[in-house]
Structures are given as structure tokens and as C-alpha cells.
């Protein structure tokens, strides 16, 4: 019998309820994370821990204006300051006009990327980088930065997305026109509306005409930041041999390498990016900001240069999520069946094209099977920092709108809100906006789990208290990953992979290798490699690492099993085709040898064994989640207190349940931050006025109860262990769920994020003054 090295197909359609689970030994357990000791003792090396001999410290000069033309930059005084080794401006960047580069997870216009890193002729937001210095210490660098004189011609700024779409709005870019989904220009004049999307199926007019109930509402959301604890930090050394090494905090060493190489117009082989441990990213550490600047300063000074952002620089100079306006209209039959849906979305992109309107449009109704729909979306330039991805980018704004209208429908039709969602739930075969039919998905199971959960059945008594529910969806992507692994004589395995570990993925990837090899998770030593040490691996983003890099680890394990079977055959003087692998041991004709035992005999059977795999799995893996939240609203202050929160999500298969629960809890807490407090607050000049954690209010442990996480497992048929990816979906539903809870507590619908105390109080006051009869 030949050794079975086939890729085990996932048990399509399996649920815990209808089939017995596979007998995994490692998957589904909760081992201590491999990097845990380093992290809790402070020994893990983060970007700011990098210290090099002769290292200089960089500082960026940033625009005080939201929109201005740069008339002149005088760096002479700074250059003369003792201790200053280099000063750069955009003039030091290569000419990058209109070159589009594929960065793995998407393509970008390098001219825009470069102009965001260092402004050329105009500054487009307050905090936009204009120049940079490198000096012997941070204090001299700051002093030198203050000596750089930039002469600006201030221009009118526009911050709100609908204002930016008006014909008389200040124009950010003279060369940007409205394009359709293919990139085809559709406007005759330059426009702040850089993208217009339209998706239509069925007959929307007939659909609404056939509906018994039609509800249409408008919603606004504020810009919010990913709020990672660790600021951006990069250190660059441009050596005399032309080799550039960058130590940085990034969600993707390879994309950081490519962006840096493209911006500096040097071959990628000349750039080595060493990803340090990362203190959070959530999408915000995919674009480069400091890397090319530190590199240019290093080249100019001949010394290594470290650059660290302050918290204010992080807020003002890196990508928040879009502010948005969304109008949603739903029509339903008396029995609750939604027959028509319409949405009009305008998302700000920040100062450069390329925002989140595409996924916003495609997610707005993605939870439901709706025969007639029309969805339009605009990507709009405003004088804010260029937006960046933030956990399910674009989906949360859309869900805030759609899930509130669904809640209204349920109330008007007197149908339980989960039951209404079940009546309309997307299932295998449902075609969502702009997309092909879903494969096997777990939305129904997730709703059913929520409906039968004790939280949903628990009484909620007391004044000003209410319960809300909402659903959320995110695609989850695949993309490219590599892994290699070498066998140690003691039976352990050293795993090298290229995914920066943000949420415990070293362990979730190592566990898949361990399961495949029949060894303990602790016997795999996972390492995250730099760009010269591991094969190309796309970003840690899109909820892809446990899915795609896990798949690479699995296939790497199959490669090792194949080679180890050959070694067993050498020992037993038999044909390798006759060796089988079962329960962590190789077997043939009544004989067996464990993986560990065989690892100790590699030298006598042919030398080292090295496994490897490169994968490019095709997504999406389709993640669905549901939130149930109880709140209490203080009518005197408008403050909303979260009393109880339960989040449900289909994980496909939870490799390490603790990390899945952590993702569900973390995403939910960030979503609660969106819901209740977080916003970029701009003055009338377009300047952010709350660029600190003192004034930008994020939820803390003191604000929240324990978030209960319930994992639903409907295995993904496209992964051998059924993994779907979980990181992004949990942020999608919370703002809508909290809004629905506030409504049920107070009778007041909140149409704008954040639902901060002043806004809730004002809405309550308006209701008191003008009660709806």
C-alpha cells in the first residue's frame, strides 16, 4: 500500500451537528504560543529595539495645512546645524509618474504612493510629509526639522465626502478623473470622485413595487484609525555595496520590500526587509511610510537611520478608514422575504485614489439572498490622510447601514430579527452583489447558533436597556505563501515562514504542520523569516495567514512525510511505496518507527531532510459573524454602557480556539470603539484636533464586559483542515448591533457614527421635544 500523501479533501458540508469531527490530535487544542515567553518578558525584538552602530535618528517635517501648494522649501539652516547628516525632500525621490505596480494584494499608482511618502507640489492633508532630516540623536533631528522653512500657499480644504463631490469643491488632483470599475474614464473634467461603481441585477423597480414594506434610511460614519499600540518605526541601512537593509514594523516584509524598491527604483534583490515583531496593524501597516524615507536618509548620510513616529504622526500621517455616507433602501414581503435592495455609498479615500468603495459595495447586502438589487458607490478624494485597510475594509460602514434597516424591517413586520435574517440568509448557491454564487458557507449555522444561545433567550429587564443583533461578512482572501521546514535530530522541526505574526499565527501555522506530521505543536519551532530567508509570502492581512500559510505548512508537511517514508524504506530495506504513515509513525509489514525516532536516524539514511511548499490558493473563504449585544443608555448623559456582548462566527475550523476567540473579541472591541466613541475630529480648516489617545477615545478593559466568543465550525471545502480565516469579520457587525440595541433601549435610531454621548443625548433630547406620535 502506498503512503497516503494526497491532500486530504475537507469534509465538505460538515457541521459539528451532522457529522463526527475528524480525530485531530493537535488542531483544536490550545498550546502555549511559541513566542509567548519572549513577548511577556519584553525580550521580543520590535522595531524600536533595533540599535545599530553609528545609527542616526530621522525626523519628518509635516504640513500644518490640510491643503496647500508648496512654493519653496529652504533646508539650508537645517543642513548647517551641527549633528545633522542628511536632509531630503521629494526631489530626492525618483520620478514615478503614472507607473502602476502590482503589490500582491492589489495594484497601486507609484506616483501617488511616492507623493504620499513625501509631498511633491502640494500637501493634501495636515500631517502630510514634506521633508526629513537625519541627525545624531532625536533631539537634534527635531531641532533641525524645525529649521526647515516651507513656504505654502494655503488652499481651501474639503473633509466631508459629500462636500467633496460638489462641483464647486476644491479639487485635490488635476489629473484624477472619475473611472468605472475597469479603470475607464467616465468624467470629462478632473474630479474628486475617482471611482464610480454600479452593480445591478434583476428589476429593482418591480422588486420594490412588489414589496409590502419599504424602508429607506441614510447613514454617516466618521474616519477612525486602526489604533495599533506600536507606532510606525523603521531603520534603514544603505550599504556602500548598494544593498539596502530595512528593519521595520510591517504586515508584509515582501510588500514592504517591493514598495520600497519601486519607490526608490532599485531592484528588489537589492532590498532586504527584516520584519520585526509587530505591535498591531489591522491593515494599517501594509503601506510604507517611513521605509523609503529612512533609506534615502541612509544613502545620503552613509549611516543607518532609524525613524519612529509619534502617536500624533500616526494619526495624522497614516491611513485611517474612510468616512462615509450610505443610503440603504430595502423592500420586503409581509412574510419577511426581502425582494429588493438598493444602496448608494460614498466613501472617502483620503488624499489619493484607491479607497474601500469596492468591498463596501460588494459587502452591503452580502449576508442575504436578494433577487433584485442596485448598488452604486463612489470613491472620493478629501483632504485627509490616504485611507488604509482596516479589518474588513469598507464592510463595517456598509453593515452599519444595512443591518439597521434590516432591524427596522423586522420590527415593522413583527418578525424576530434573527428569524428575519434566517428567512433571507445567503447559503450555498446564493449570488451576492457583483459576485458568483457562494460555495458552502456557514451563515445559517451561525444565525441558528446565535438564536439558540442563552444570551438571546435571557431576559433583559430594567429601564433604558435594549438588545441588538446584527450580522457581518468579509471575503477572506488566499494569496501566496511559502514555508520550509528542516528536521532536527531530536525529532523537532524548525519551520520557516514569511507571515508576520500579529495574532498568534506562528502557532496556528505550526499546529497545522504538527498535525500533518503527527507530532506535538511544541515540537515545531516556527520562525518568521526575512525577505532573503523565505519564499515570497503576501501580507498578513485579508484574514489569510492561518488559511494560506497554514496550507503551505500542510503541504510542506506532506513533502516531509514523503521524504521520511523514503528514509524508513532505507532502514527497512523495502520499497518506499510500501511504507504508510499513521498516528505519527511510519509503518510497513508490522514494523513501525515514530517520526521522532526516524528523525534521529537521518544521517544513516541519507542526510538532512528539508521540506518545502509554495502555495497560491484561490479565495475567498467567506466569513460570517453575528453579534448580540445588551446596552444601557443613560438618558441624562447619552452614555451607552455595554452590559453583555456575545459574538458568533463561522471559523471553518478553529486551529487554535483561543486565538480565534481572541480575534473575535479583538475585532468586536474595535467595532465597539467605532460604535461609541472613535472619530477623527476636524476643525473648520481640516485639521485633526484629537491626535492623541487622550482625546481619541478608544475603549479600554474598564469600559467593557468580557466579550463572549462562540465559534461555529462549518469547514471550508477549499482547505484540508477546513480553515476559513477569522480576523476581519468580527469588526463588521458591532456598530450596527450596538445601534440596534440603543434603539431598543431608547426608541431612538442613531444614523451616525460614532454614537458618542453628545450625539445620543441630542437624539434623545430631540425625541423628548418632538415625540413621534
Amino acid at each position: 500500500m502506498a503512503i497516503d500523501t494526497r491532500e486530504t479533501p475537507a469534509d465538505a458540508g460538515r457541521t459539528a451537528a451532522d457529522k463526527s469531527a475528524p480525530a485531530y490530535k493537535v488542531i483544536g487544542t490550545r498550546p502555549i504560543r511559541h513566542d509567548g515567553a519572549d513577548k511577556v518578558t519584553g525580550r521580543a525584538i520590535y522595531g524600536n529595539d533595533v540599535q545599530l552602530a553609528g545609527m542616526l535618528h530621522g525626523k519628518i517635517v509635516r504640513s500644518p495645512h490640510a491643503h496647500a501648494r508648496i512654493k519653496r522649501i529652504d533646508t539650508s539652516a537645517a543642513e548647517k546645524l551641527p549633528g545633522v547628516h542628511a536632509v531630503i525632500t521629494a526631489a530626492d525621490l525618483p520620478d514615478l509618474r503614472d507607473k502602476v505596480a502590482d503589490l500582491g494584494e492589489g495594484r497601486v499608482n507609484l506616483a501617488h504612493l511616492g507623493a504620499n511618502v513625501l509631498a511633491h507640489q502640494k500637501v493634501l492633508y495636515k500631517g502630510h510629509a514634506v521633508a526629513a532630516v537625519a541627525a545624531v540623536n532625536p533631539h537634534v533631528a527635531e531641532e533641525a526639522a524645525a529649521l526647515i522653512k516651507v513656504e505654502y500657499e494655503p488652499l481651501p480644504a474639503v473633509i466631508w465626502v459629500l462636500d467633496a463631490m460638489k462641483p464647486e469643491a476644491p479639487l485635490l488632483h488635476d489629473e484624477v478623473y472619475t473611472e468605472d470599475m475597469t479603470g475607464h474614464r467616465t468624467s470629462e473634467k478632473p474630479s474628486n470622485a475617482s471611482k464610480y461603481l454600479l452593480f445591478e441585477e434583476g428589476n429593482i423597480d418591480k422588486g420594490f413595487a412588489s414589496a409590502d414594506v419599504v424602508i429607506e434610511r441614510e447613514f454617516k460614519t466618521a474616519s477612525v484609525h486602526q489604533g495599533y499600540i506600536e507606532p510606525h518605526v523603521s531603520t534603514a541601512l544603505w550599504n556602500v555595496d548598494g544593498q539596502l537593509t530595512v528593519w521595520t514594523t510591517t504586515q508584509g516584509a515582501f510588500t514592504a520590500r517591493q514598495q520600497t524598491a519601486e519607490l526608490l527604483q532599485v531592484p528588489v534583490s537589492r532590498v532586504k526587509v527584516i520584519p520585526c515583531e509587530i505591535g498591531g496593524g489591522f491593515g494599517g501597516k501594509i503601506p510604507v511610510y517611513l521605509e523609503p524615507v529612512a533609506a534615502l536618509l541612509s544613502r545620503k548620510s552613509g549611516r543607518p537611520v532609524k525613524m519612529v513616529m509619534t502617536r500624533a504622526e500616526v494619526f495624522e500621517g497614516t491611513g485611517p478608514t474612510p468616512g462615509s455616507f450610505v443610503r440603504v433602501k430595502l423592500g420586503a414581503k409581509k412574510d419577511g422575504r426581502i425582494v429588493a435592495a438598493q444602496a448608494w455609498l460614498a466613501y472617502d479615500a483620503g488624499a489619493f485614489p484607491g479607497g474601500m468603495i469596492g468591498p463596501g459595495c460588494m459587502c452591503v447586502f452580502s449576508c442575504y439572498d436578494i433577487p433584485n438589487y442596485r448598488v452604486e458607490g463612489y470613491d472620493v478624494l478629501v483632504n485627509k490622510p490616504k485611507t488604509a485597510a482596516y479589518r474588513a475594509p469598507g464592510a463595517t460602514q456598509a453593515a452599519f447601514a444595512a443591518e439597521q434597516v434590516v432591524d427596522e424591517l423586522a420590527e415593522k413586520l413583527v418578525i424576530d430579527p434573527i428569524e428575519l435574517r434566517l428567512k433571507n440568509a445567503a447559503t450555498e448557491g446564493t449570488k451576492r452583489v457583483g459576485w458568483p454564487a457562494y460555495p458552502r458557507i456557514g451563515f445559517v449555522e451561525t444565525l441558528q447558533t446565535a438564536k439558540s444561545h442563552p444570551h438571546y433567550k435571557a431576559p433583559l429587564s430594567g429601564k433604558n436597556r435594549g438588545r441588538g443583533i446584527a450580522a457581518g461578512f468579509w471575503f477572506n482572501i488566499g494569496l501566496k505563501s511559502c514555508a520550509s521546514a528542516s528536521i532536527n535530530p531530536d525529532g523537532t522541526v524548525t519551520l520557516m515562514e514569511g507571515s508576520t505574526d500579529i495574532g498568534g499565527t506562528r502557532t496556528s501555522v505550526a499546529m497545522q504542520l504538527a498535525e500533518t506530521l503527527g507530532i506535538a505543536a511544541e515540537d515545531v519551532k516556527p520562525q518568521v523569516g526575512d525577505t532573503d530567508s523565505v519564499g515570497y509570502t503576501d501580507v498578513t492581512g485579508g484574514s489569510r495567514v492561518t488559511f494560506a500559510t497554514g496550507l503551505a505548512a500542510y503541504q510542506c508537511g506532506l513533502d516531509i512525510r514523503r521524504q521520511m517514508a523514503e528514509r524508513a524504506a532505507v532502514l527497512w530495506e523495502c520499497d518506499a511505496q510500501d511504507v504508510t504513515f499513521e498516528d505519527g509513525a511510519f509503518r510497513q509489514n508490522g514494523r513501525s518507527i515514530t517520526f521522532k525516532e526516524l528523525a534521529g536516524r537521518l544521517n544513516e539514511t541519507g542526510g538532512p531532510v528539508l521540506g518545502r511548499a509554495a502555495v497560491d490558493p484561490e479565495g475567498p473563504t467567506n466569513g460570517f459573524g453575528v453579534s448580540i449585544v445588551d446596552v444601557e443608555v443613560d438618558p441624562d448623559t447619552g452614555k451607552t454602557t455595554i452590559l453583555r456582548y456575545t459574538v458568533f462566527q463561522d471559523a471553518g475550523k478553529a486551529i487554535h480556539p483561543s486565538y480565534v476567540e481572541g480575534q473575535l473579541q479583538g475585532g468586536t472591541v474595535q467595532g465597539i470603539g467605532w460604535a461609541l466613541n472613535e472619530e477623527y475630529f476636524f476643525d473648520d480648516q481640516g485639521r485633526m484636533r484629537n491626535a492623541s489617545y487622550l482625546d481619541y477615545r478608544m475603549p479600554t478593559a474598564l469600559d467593557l464586559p468580557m466579550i463572549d466568543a462562540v465559534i461555529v465550525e462549518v469547514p471550508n471545502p477549499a482547505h484540508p483542515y477546513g480553515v476559513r480565516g477569522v480576523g476581519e469579520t468580527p469588526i463588521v457587525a458591532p456598530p450596527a448591533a450596538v445601534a440596534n440595541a440603543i434603539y431598543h433601549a431608547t426608541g431612538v435610531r442613531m444614523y451616525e457614527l460614532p454614537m458618542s454621548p453628545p450625539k445620543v443625548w441630542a437624539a434623545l433630547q430631540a425625541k423628548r421635544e418632538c415625540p413621534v406620535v
Partner: protein
Amino acid sequence: MAIVHIPTQLRTLTGGVERLEVSGTTLRQVIAALDAAHPGLGARLCQNEGLSPALAVSIDGSFTNRGLLAKVGPSSEIHFLPAIGGG
């Protein structure tokens, strides 16, 4: 024949037709067939001898990263979508 779902914004080029059946074993061949049937579609879907950078393509429900070289089966369903990323 592969079934191509025409994006709403390109239906002006197909006279409002939402789905087209065309032959081809690669995406390049499929788009060439589309363009032959409805001139102009190829120019909208492609740019600089590749798929438009603004687009992603799904074949039989899965994203493909292979652009015009992507394999197409005899009864594949093809969708063109806006490119997306993740956080």
C-alpha cells in the same frame, strides 16, 4: 462554452446582455472572443497586454491570480470584479 457575467458598467457594450457564452481555454482567449462579439469589451477589460489593474477575476467562484493566463474550463463561470484587499 464558458459563461461570462458582464459587469453592469460594461453592459452598454453588449446591448444590455448580462451573460455571454464564449469559447476559450484561457482568459485571454475568452476576452478575445468577447471582443470579437462585442467590440470594445477587450479594451475595457485589458490594459497594457494584461488584465486591467482595476479588476480582479473570479473563475468558478474563486479568485485567480493568473490574469489572462488563467485556465478556463468548458463550462466555467467568469465574473469580473473590482480588485479588493484586506486588513
